[in-house]
């Protein structure tokens, strides 16, 4: 079996290397046909008149098959050009689609957004940095910044501390797998779904009526007055929203920490124990320094998530009652108020906030071999 494949592939070698007009034309024809089929499928999908299930099936075949077909035919075309040109062009066939998409969907739009942020509400008059000045002085934006800061500090530290605590506990327990699954499970739930779950927990009914929200039921059972958690006591009602994300992201921290904890060498721990260190000393003086890199990774990841937080706030309060955050302000300014320049400026402020993480990533990359 092995022998035949070898012979087969050897006999193919000359053909693969030599340029041939016939192969070139076939490949070109294939590429054109692929593009034509894709275009027809696109027109069919855009018209959207067929029953949903038919559209769905065509869309699936078209979307998934189309990309594979494009790669195959484009590569056939390159391989028909002869070995020298193939060597030169083939890498770009491989990396090209990704590079084009990244440029089209992230790099260029980010630059355009920055450009737009220098213009007024209708994008026709140049206003310089006036939008940025407005972003930092507007009352709602200041509220949004303050709330995002709350999210950043409380959300990130809670996820890191709780995640680490649970990882350490689970590491010493016999029920590690099941406990980790339970804590990790909310990661699979959408922010919108989680928002509704917690809206139900925070549900409020006036005093005297039955409380269907768990939190108010506990409060009233202890003799307290029911509290409208999400609307009263601003800005601390933000904490109840942050709790949702803590519920969702502690599992992420836990999984990553758990893997890092297993990487701490046993002989170091054993040596410390022999020297008479207590478990708490071991934790703070050996384990924490050892996994510091992981702690930074988890903290930055959760921090980026909290900076961009949108869905939870949108679903639970809609940004009212003093819970506005930067991303909801962005959405509202741009899509509801049609205040284009201002909305773009908010997006760029968000971008500036993650720049340090970006530079950190690039510096790490430079340290790696090969790049």
């Amino acid at each position, binding site marked *: 079996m092995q022998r035949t494949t070898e012979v087969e592939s050897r006999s193919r070698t000359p053909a693969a290397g030599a340029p041939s007009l016939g192969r070139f034309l076939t490949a070109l024809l294939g590429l054109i046909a692929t593009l034509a089929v894709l275009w027809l499928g696109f027109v069919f999908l855009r018209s959207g008149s067929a029953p949903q299930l038919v559209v769905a099936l065509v869309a699936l075949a078209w979307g998934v098959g189309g990309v594979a077909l494009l790669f195959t035919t484009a590569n056939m075309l390159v391989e028909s050009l002869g070995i020298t040109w193939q060597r030169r062009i083939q890498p770009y066939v491989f990396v090209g689609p990704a590079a084009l998409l*990244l440029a089209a969907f992230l790099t260029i*739009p980010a630059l*355009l*957004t920055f450009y737009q942020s220098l213009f007024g509400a209708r994008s026709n008059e140049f206003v310089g940095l006036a939008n940025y000045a407005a972003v930092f002085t507007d009352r709602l934006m200041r509220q949004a910044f303050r709330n995002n800061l709350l999210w950043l500090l409380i959300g990130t530290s809670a996820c890191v501390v709780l995640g680490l605590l649970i990882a350490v506990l689970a590491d010493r327990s016999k029920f590690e797998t099941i406990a980790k699954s339970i804590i990790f499970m909310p990661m699979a739930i959408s922010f919108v779904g989680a928002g509704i779950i917690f809206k139900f927990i925070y549900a409020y009914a006036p005093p005297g009526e039955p409380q269907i929200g768990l939190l108010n*039921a506990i409060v009233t059972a202890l003799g307290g007055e029911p509290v409208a958690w999400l609307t009263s006591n601003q800005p601390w009602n933000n904490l109840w929203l942050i709790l949702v994300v803590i519920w969702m992201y502690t599992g992420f921290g836990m999984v990553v920490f758990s893997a890092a904890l297993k990487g701490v060498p046993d002989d170091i721990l054993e040596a410390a124990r022999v020297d008479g260190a207590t478990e708490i000393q071991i934790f703070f003086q050996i384990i924490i320094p050892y996994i510091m890199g992981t702690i930074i990774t988890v903290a930055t990841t959760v921090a980026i998530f909290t900076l961009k937080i949108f869905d939870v706030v949108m679903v639970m309060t809609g940004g009212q009652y003093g819970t506005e955050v930067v991303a909801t302000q962005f959405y509202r300014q741009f*899509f509801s108020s049609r205040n*284009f320049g201002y909305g773009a400026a908010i997006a760029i402020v968000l971008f500036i906030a993650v720049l340090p993480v970006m530079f950190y990533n690039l510096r790490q990359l430079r340290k790696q071999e090969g790049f």
Partner: protein
Amino acid sequence: MATLAQPSVARPRAASARRQRLINGLLVNGSLALLCVLWLIPTIGLLVSSFRPRDDILASGWWTVLPHRTYVTVDQIDLGRGTPLDQPIQLPQLGATVTDEQLRAGYVLPDGRKLVWDNRRQRLIGVQERQLVVGSNFTLANYREVLGSAGMGQAFITTLVVAIPSTVIPILIAAFAAHSFAWMRYPGRRLLFAMVVALLVVPLQVALIPILRAYTALNINGTYLAMWLAHTGFGLPLATYLLYNYISQLPRDIMESAYIDGASNFTIFTRLILPLSVPALASFAIFQFLWVWNDYLVALIFLGGNPYARVLTMRLADLAGSRGQDWHLLTAGAFISMIVPLIVFFSLQRYFVRGLLAGSVKG
């Protein structure tokens, strides 16, 4: 002396060490169990509520389906219409005298039974006793309503059609790119890879506005294609980065021997690299699938204008906004939107975790 004293010291020390270990074990498992219960309660509450009839949800908390002690009416006393309420009411059969006010609040007799108005106008007093009760009133009506008239069924299919290509397309494109970064040498390679790494953390908010403009110009706003392309673009940095990390670790000599045998780069990629990368491909696929399935912002912006293509998260957010008090619909709807992610999560957990571990810097 010393040899004699040693055992007598060592034995209590061993015992106390054992006790210490036991206490430690209890502490660890106890606090872990407590945390797990806290973590599970929200989801369980949702699941239980989604099966309760509408009126039950509004009348009592979901935890009342658990066995609990509560007052249950066991007897009724008819005072007769027209009994005056402005003076104490004699109840000779119970040997008690109560006032209207006490009955309205609920009056507890010395033997533990409770008297309360069943119907004040018809002068009916209920006699209640504390009993152990289990709520068992479950229904599928919420799901039927939410899947039918609330449009969740249709949204479910829409979400699938958005999510599957949005998962497969970026993987395919990213795998090709990752292979070129790992095994091919060409001008511009470093720069392109630096772009991938830099874009890992870029918030997608900065890209939404120009993309929306471009979509409007191309007349593809509100179509599936618009969603696939957007999710592909936003998912590509992480996909490429993760797959590069995996593919560049594959043993070099396999590829070299294949190359010597005359296999082209494309053949090596499709016949060798792809099959060998299945674990990495799978873990990213789960990650991206869950991300797309749970996405709300991208759908809201690119599908917001199309009433026929609404994904689950949009439907759910609509429900929460317009019918925020319809808990029977909200809970059932939320659970429908969670079913697929939870199935994916529990069946493919191991791969999912691997994907997270490799890519803990997603933007």
